[in-house]
């Protein structure tokens, strides 16, 4: 019945016709999932259960020592992954919030996917600080709450800042994500029947699209965007301070905050591409995700890649210039020492690989973009590895130097998080409109 109503109204105006087309396209991407889809979801779900939950359980029972951490290197790839995922999360907020404030059009194609990615990635990131704790069953001590012990937490500690940064970030991005979805839920509702219809209608909070609702909605959305934007800078700066606040040579530098933020956006864009390019293909969203928008994304990536590259070089310069034996020692070791492969791998992936994007043809070539994005993801992971591990491995006292290799449980948990990430994203892709329908419609004149 609604169908007909829409149809007739559409028949009247061609613009309405276009809008309807968009609507249909996005909705059709949500039609009944096939067997393959469920198989994939199941696969990832089991992966999550076995690799992450299972391994973590064993680690809690046996002790953190199952990992590869040792005396100089107290933080293994758990923290690497933590920073990596927080980084991924960033572009979500960037694309949706910042670009929204800048009124840049191309965001509409990605923002939904990006936001979803943000939420999921923050979840992944949030797990790691817990996983890496020696006594996770006392993790609640990290939160300041009145207790019979009359104890308080140490607000001087960067880790404490982290607790707040991450939780804030999760809250904001979830709210932002959901608010963005409300009108679309209302649309999706119209196309569904039975129980799911009920669910969607509840989720849409009785959205009817009246003028008043739209006015309030836009106001709220703008406000949230305004709230979220500073987080893009603040959260990852705080994360970078986890390291910059330490006196570990290789960590203790002022360029970390901007350097990390740029890196975060860089990796975030890469991950968006990695996710959206296949999605576009599979769910046939060619019209709602035009190639130009991918190109714009590629440009952002190229730009940030160069910022990061600059940071890499300047670090060396500073270390050399400082004449500080510890500082320069660590950088020499990065380039030539035990971890040189990781280091040069990082340089290759993050500095060299993106360079061809200067060529317009390649920017517009989705296959090329996809490969590049994969490389960048790997490169950014390596960057975190290099920053965290190598610095700790070669600190002040030579007697206490050591080498770290990740061990079974750590790898397994890492795989587990990726399973979790893809599982969640698959669910998102089928059960929520992957593109902001209403905004797309607005584009139509």
């Amino acid at each position, binding site marked *: 019945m609604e169908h007909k109503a829409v149809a007739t109204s559409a028949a009247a105006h061609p613009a309405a016709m276009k809008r309807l087309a968009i609507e249909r396209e996005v909705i059709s991407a949500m039609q009944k999932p096939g067997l393959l889809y469920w198989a994939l979801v199941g696969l990832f779900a089991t992966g999550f259960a076995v690799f992450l939950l299972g391994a973590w359980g064993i680690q809690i029972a046996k002790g953190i020592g199952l990992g590869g951490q040792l005396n100089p290197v107290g933080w293994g790839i758990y923290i690497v992954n933590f920073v990596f995922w927080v980084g991924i999360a960033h572009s979500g907020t960037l694309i949706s919030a910042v670009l929204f404030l800048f009124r840049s059009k191309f965001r509409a194609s990605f923002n939904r996917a990006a936001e979803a990615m943000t939420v999921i990635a923050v979840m992944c990131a949030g797990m790691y600080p817990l996983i890496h704790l020696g006594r996770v069953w006392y993790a609640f001590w990290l939160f300041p709450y009145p*207790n*019979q*012990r*009359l104890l308080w937490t140490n607000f001087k500690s960067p880790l404490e800042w982290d607790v707040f940064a991450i939780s804030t970030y999760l809250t904001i991005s979830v709210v932002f994500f959901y608010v963005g979805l409300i009108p679309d839920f209302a649309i999706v509702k119209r196309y569904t029947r039975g129980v799911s219809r009920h669910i969607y209608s509840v989720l849409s909070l009785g959205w009817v699209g009246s003028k008043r609702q739209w006015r309030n909605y836009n106001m709220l959305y703008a406000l949230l965007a305004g709230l979220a934007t500073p987080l893009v800078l603040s959260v990852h700066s705080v994360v970078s301070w986890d390291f910059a606040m330490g006196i570990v040579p290789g960590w203790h530098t002022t360029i970390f905050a901007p350097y990390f933020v740029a890196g975060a956006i860089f990796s975030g864009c890469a991950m968006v591409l990695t996710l959206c390019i296949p999605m576009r293909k599979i769910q046939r969203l060619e019209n709602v995700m035009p190639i130009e928008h991918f190109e714009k994304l590629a440009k952002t990536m190229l730009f940030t890649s160069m910022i990061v590259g600059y940071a890499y070089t300047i670090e060396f310069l500073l270390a050399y210039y400082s004449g500080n034996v510890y500082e320069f020692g660590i950088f020499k070791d990065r380039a030539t020492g035990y971890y040189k492969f990781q280091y040069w791998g990082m340089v290759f992936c993050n500095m060299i690989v993106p360079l061809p994007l200067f060529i317009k043809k390649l920017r517009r070539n989705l296959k090329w973009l996809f490969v590049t994005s994969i490389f960048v993801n790997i490169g950014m992971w390596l960057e975190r590895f290099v920053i965290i591990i190598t610095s700790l491995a070669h600190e002040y006292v030579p007697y206490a130097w050591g080498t770290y290799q990740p061990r079974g449980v750590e790898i397994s948990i890492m795989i587990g998080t990726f399973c979790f990430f893809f599982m969640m994203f698959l669910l998102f892709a089928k059960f929520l409109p992957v593109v902001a329908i209403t905004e797309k419609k607005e584009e139509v004149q």
Partner: protein
Amino acid sequence: MIKRIVDSAVFGYFALMMVLILLLGFRWHTHRKAPVQPIAFSHATHAGKLNLQCLFCHDTADKSYYAGVPSVQKCMSCHQAVKTEMPEIQKLTKYWNDKEPVPWERVHRIRIRNHVYFSHKRHIAAGADCEHCHGALRAMTQVRQVKSMKMGFCVSCHEANHAPTDCLICHM
């Protein structure tokens, strides 16, 4: 049909609640109930009625960090003559004759994992009252743990009496 489902659901819910409370209660019941001692020794009689001083039996409380359980010999020093006809005292005499120590049940146990050091000596030297922590022993026929002995309990008393609250004072 619906009716039956609803009824059983309601019943299930309440039943669950009852079971939970029972479990809770049971847990606490076992947790803090006064343990059954091998000899029904009454503090009410000795500390209360006879008004024996705590240090009379727990004689190392003011000398060592350990309050000291009175030696069987000490019990016998009086009970070789006093109330020898009572069955409980005869139990005691039996232990003494078998040259076995009395296996008292612990009442106040500081839990294993909490890495604290507590010195009875220092607290008595500071003029702390035994019963402030151990409850009104003069009134207990069967000793039980009255105070939680949690950290908050210690800290607030330390603060109240301007005792040091540096972690290392107790923790190690």
